[in-house]
């Protein structure tokens, strides 16, 4: 027995068709619900113009909403707006007069006639709340929706009803429609993040839960929640037996050949200790067959290239040759899922194998939902590893000198496959840099604590192991055998 597949009308909205597993049920009724200003009209128009590009015809009927002139003025700023499709393929008409003079029956008659007259394959009814308010009872309104549903199916016209949430828990129209999309906002402190939920989607599975979106010049851009979008990896994972160079000879020796390929490595340490410099060495090992990506939050591309040059790493030539790409995320109010999608797209586009994420704090600051962090990074890093990506990220610790070498955030065990700590240590009244490997997946390593220096045009140079000293990672060295007496005191 073969199951019937419901034909879909794609939205053309980035991210939404993935969430809906292909689009909206063709010939069905779909509610787009949300408070004023969340982008319902923009979304409906975006769907309409995409449908017209595919050869469809759209009838956009307004009840009590903004005037057509005002709507078209606003749409004129959107890149999806194509004025030459107006009239022939997309028509805006008002149904409010019919509703006012003849009630819901007059409106349904107008819709029925004009769907046929315009040969519409998509109908948008903007301002459903006006129809709801004009109904004498819930039953009358339910009948209206039922009639509309019958007409939509009969005319093979996919219908979108735009409405504000009226606070009722289960409005009667919800029981009959084929889909419900809710658009809303989440506020945390002074930040507001827009999000979309699929409440109902007949005929196929969908990505449940909250998905953030932004309204841009291209309309709505939706970012499917990473944990749902990639809960199954897009590539089958495999064993990666090789090791890859960090670009720092002495560190490779400590790692007994380098970092295990396709793993996640954290470089933790205080500000200015050399985390990004180490990352630059790592990315400097990129090759045409092993392209690199720097996904950074703090240093702009020109500054990063300058830093690389001072370390003796010719990143500029690598960027010019396309071997390395630098994607800088301006600081500000980033969206966690948007960042992850941008990273994954950049990896996909160039088949990237080495990524420097500088630094992890940029992702953490973007998150409005700290409880998601653990699963978010687990899914994201699994996807990266399945694509054969070796990720090296930097993470700043708070204290310049201090006793703690723990990860500054908890619940991100997926991010600590390999962990390298960089520290300052006070020794002979001088601040020295030291490096220690704390963890390396499935491999032995040199557990010694070594001093390193950053030399002009040569970069990081790992030196000999500290001898005769202890408590180095605490920040203040002490002579061995003299646990209470500090060096130099």
């Amino acid at each position, binding site marked *: 027995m073969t199951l019937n597949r419901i034909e879909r009308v794609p939205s053309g909205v980035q991210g939404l068709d993935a969430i809906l597993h292909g689009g909206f049920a063709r010939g069905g009724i779909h509610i787009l619900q949300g408070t004023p200003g969340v982008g319902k009209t923009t979304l409906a128009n975006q769907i309409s113009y995409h449908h017209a590009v595919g050869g469809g015809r759209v009838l956009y*009927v*307004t009840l009590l909403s903004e*005037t*057509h*002139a*005002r709507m*078209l*003025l606003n749409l*004129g700023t959107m890149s999806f707006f194509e*004025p*030459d499709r*107006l*009239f022939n393929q997309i*028509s*805006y*008409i*008002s*149904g*409010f*007069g*019919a509703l*006012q003079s003849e009630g819901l029956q007059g409106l349904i008659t*107008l819709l029925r*006639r*004009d769907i046929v*007259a315009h040969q519409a394959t998509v109908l948008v009814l903007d301002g459903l709340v006006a129809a709801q308010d004009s109904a004498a009872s819930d039953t009358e309104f339910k009948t209206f929706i039922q009639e509309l549903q019958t007409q939509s199916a009969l005319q093979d016209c996919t219908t979108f009803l735009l409405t504000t949430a009226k606070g009722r828990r289960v409005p009667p129209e919800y029981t009959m429609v084929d889909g419900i999309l809710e658009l809303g906002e989440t506020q945390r402190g002074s930040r507001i993040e827009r999000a979309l939920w699929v409440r109902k989607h007949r005929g196929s599975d969908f990505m449940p839960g909250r998905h953030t979106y932004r309204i841009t010049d291209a309309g709505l851009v939706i970012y499917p929640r990473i944990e749902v979008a990639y809960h199954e990896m897009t590539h089958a994972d495999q064993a990666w037996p090789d090791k890859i160079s960090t670009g720092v000879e002495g560190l490779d020796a400590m790692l007994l050949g380098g970092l295990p390929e396709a793993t996640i490595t954290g470089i933790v340490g205080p500000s200015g200790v050399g985390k990004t410099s180490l990352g630059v060495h790592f990315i400097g090992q990129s090759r045409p067959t092993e392209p690199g990506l720097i996904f950074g939050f703090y240093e702009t591309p020109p500054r990063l290239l300058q830093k690389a040059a001072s370390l003796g790493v010719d990143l500029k030539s690598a960027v010019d040759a396309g071997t390395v790409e630098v994607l800088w995320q301006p600081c500000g109010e980033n969206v966690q899922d948007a960042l992850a999608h941008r990273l994954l797209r950049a990896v996909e586009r160039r088949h990237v194998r080495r990524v420097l994420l500088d630094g992890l704090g940029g992702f953490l600051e973007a998150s409005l939902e700290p409880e998601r962090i653990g699963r978010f990074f687990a899914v994201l890093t699994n996807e990266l590893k399945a694509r054969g990506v070796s990720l090296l990220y930097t993470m700043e610790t708070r204290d310049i000198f201090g006793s703690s070498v723990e990860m500054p955030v908890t619940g991100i065990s997926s991010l600590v496959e390999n962990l390298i700590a960089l520290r300052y240590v006070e020794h002979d009244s001088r601040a020295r840099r030291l490096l220690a490997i704390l963890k390396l997946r499935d491999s032995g390593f040199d557990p010694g604590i070594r001093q390193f220096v950053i030399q002009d045009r040569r970069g990081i140079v790992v030196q000999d192991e500290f001898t005769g000293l202890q408590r180095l990672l605490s920040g203040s060295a002490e002579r061995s055998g003299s646990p209470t007496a500090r060096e130099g005191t």
Partner: protein
Amino acid sequence: MTLVLVVEDEPLIAMALEAALQDAGFVVSIASNGKQALARLAEQPLADIVLLDMMMPVMSGPAMLEMMREDPVLNAIPVIILSSLPLESTLARVGGGLPVIRKPYTIKEVLRVMRSELDRAARSPKQAPDPSA
């Protein structure tokens, strides 16, 4: 008194325009689509000028214009297009080269174009056949 027929499907816009035109001394009749407007034009007195929206339910502006052109009496009535269509090429195609007022408009602009069209029609009226002939 000059009779203006406003053909507009957005009731709030139609009502606002009606009030403003009445304040300016015109007599105003409202129709919410082309079909209703043709019915109004079949009544007496005949409108002196028509302000016509393009995208409307039941019968669109261009469809109504086509009907008017087939009737020599109606064809003689000056028509001004009121439209939010942003492209000149689309307007030229559907508006038949008639004067256009872009939405959103001001009443000052509407009155200026209306008076200009009424003056032009008075100076060189379109030849309508004598209905008694």
